[in-house]
């Protein structure tokens, strides 16, 4: 094994293990039929078969991924705009709203989105996007405003243009704080997307909801297991990413 690969494996070992377990569980759930039969001896069916687990996982990832990507672009973009000279007027309002919006419970936001946007996958994406924006905006603002003005001035004094200062100084320095916000946002989104199963979006929340409705504990455990593994995979990946950032920019 080359040293680079070994170092990479050491760094990404934990997320890779979780990812492996996640894939294994979504592909081989049927192999565990005996366990689920023991859990739920009276039900006719003990493995959720309405949709493949891998398909559900894919849909879950798609919804969270699209919403998170858009939220990152819009959130970091908004934070950059309101910290530029021409956007400063909007800074107090955006900062106050981003910190106040954190108190809105995700379920309530999701529920309020349905009357306005309707049932289905698109409303979920919009709701997740809007809600996921708040931690990203708040952390991006904190990161960008936390930079020592002297650093900014030194970069300008070296003859860098405003755009260069933003790209080569401000954003890299703020990156760890921004990434922490992205992590919060994605973690909340994975959980909230599962609730999307109650508003007509099909994803890993489906087996849980179906299990609760039909009183089938085996379904619930299957859905919960996969969502839990997905959350742990993503969260541990972010932890590695943050640890690595911290070392690089210390």
């Amino acid at each position, binding site marked *: 094994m080359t040293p680079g690969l070994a170092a990479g494996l050491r760094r990404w070992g934990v997320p890779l293990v979780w990812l492996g377990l996640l894939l294994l569980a979504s592909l081989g759930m049927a192999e565990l039929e005996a366990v689920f039969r023991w859990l739920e001896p009276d039900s006719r069916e003990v493995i959720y078969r309405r949709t493949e687990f891998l398909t559900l996982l894919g849909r879950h990832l798609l919804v969270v991924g699209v919403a998170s990507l858009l939220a990152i672009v819009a959130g970091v973009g908004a934070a950059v705009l309101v910290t530029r000279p021409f956007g400063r007027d909007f800074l107090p*309002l955006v900062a106050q709203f981003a910190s106040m919006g954190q108190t809105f419970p995700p379920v309530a936001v999701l529920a309020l989105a349905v009357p306005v946007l309707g049932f289905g996958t698109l409303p979920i994406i919009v709701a997740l996007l809007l809600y996921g924006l708040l931690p990203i905006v708040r952390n991006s603002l904190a990161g960008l405003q936390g930079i020592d003005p002297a650093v900014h001035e030194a970069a300008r004094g070296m003859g860098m243009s405003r755009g260069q200062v933003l790209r080569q100084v401000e954003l890299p320095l703020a990156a760890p704080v921004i990434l922490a916000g992205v992590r919060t946002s994605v973690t909340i989104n994975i959980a909230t997307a599962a609730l999307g199963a109650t508003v007509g979006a099909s994803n890993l929340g489906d087996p849980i909801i179906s299990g609760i409705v039909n009183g089938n504990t085996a379904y619930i455990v299957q859905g919960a297991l996969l969502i839990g593994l997905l959350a742990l995979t993503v969260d541990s990946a972010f932890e590695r990413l943050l640890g690595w950032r911290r070392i690089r920019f210390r």
Partner: protein
Amino acid sequence: MRRDAPRPNRVLPLLMLVALAAWLGLVAVSVAPNRIVPGTGFRAHEVVGWAGALGACLPPLAVAVLAWHPSPARLRHALVLIVLLLMALPAWLGLAATRLVDPELPQARLGLGSAFWVLLFLLLLALIELRSRLALSRLVGWVLLVPVLLAWWLALASWLEPLALLQEYRARSDQFATAVWHHLALVGAAVGASLVIGVALALLMRPHAGLQRAGFGVLNFLQTIPSLALFGLLLAPLAWLGANVEWLAALGVRGIGWAPALLALIGYSLLPMVRNTFVALEGVDPAVIESARGMGMSRRQVFLQVRLPLALPVILEGVRITTVQAIGLTAVAALIGAGGLGGFIFQGLGQAAMDLVLLGALPILVMALVADALLGALSERLHPGGAR
């Protein structure tokens, strides 16, 4: 331009222009003959005619103009206008109800359109903006909402009879009271229990570095697992306990119900509670502790009279985070039969009755905001040296 002319405030004019576009362009209210049939949407000018709809644009335009040449006096005028506009919203709904809803049909109902929500949101943003520009305290901000709430209360009590939200409430006012009570009881029990356990854990972990790593590892792990999954995973073991342990069954522990909900809520609440307590106790300046010891205080006295009071605001910050989080999570707990306001949300989603969803979601939102404001104010007050 005069030398002392202040820079124009561009935020308020932008908010007001978007508000006007929403007012003229989006559906303001919808009317349905009964609960099942989807409503017909009406724009503002379809209710009061173009003259009325355009006339209503004058106050927001005035706010925009006042803000373009801001001075404290002008911004105060703008603030008054915004509060008046917020008070006018229920009156506007009442007007729409008398014009559109047939009094012969007792089942007919008035729904809130997207224009209404956008307007409410933008007006509240304008209120926040003005409050921060005028450097008004939080308290004044809340006081400003009192006339608005009074206007709403008056409208709901007298002429908003056909409002769909109100009709849903009327149909289940007893259930609503029980749900609010259950919700608050679950949140209170979870926060109370996690406060006791959390402080105990933090004190236990303080002297042992190994225990700290392990403890925070477990709590972080718990916090990562989505609520729906954790509620689900707790169903099976608790159902087993309820079926096999007699005294637990007598207490009402079953797979479905308050037991798994409370357990999961406490599990989630522990991380912010332990972390804040820990940080708070560690954050006390060692020099202060040393001088207290030097004054001849015993360890116990130092802890109770110096460390704890100094740490209290940060611990309360943990209580605030935990409470707000628990209010939201309790809504999810309704899915496993724990009761509470989440029940209305999921019932409403199941029946595609959006006003029932609102009946659950709006109080949860209000509860979270009020809890956040109250506990935030309390922790500010407890800061050494009083309110900041």
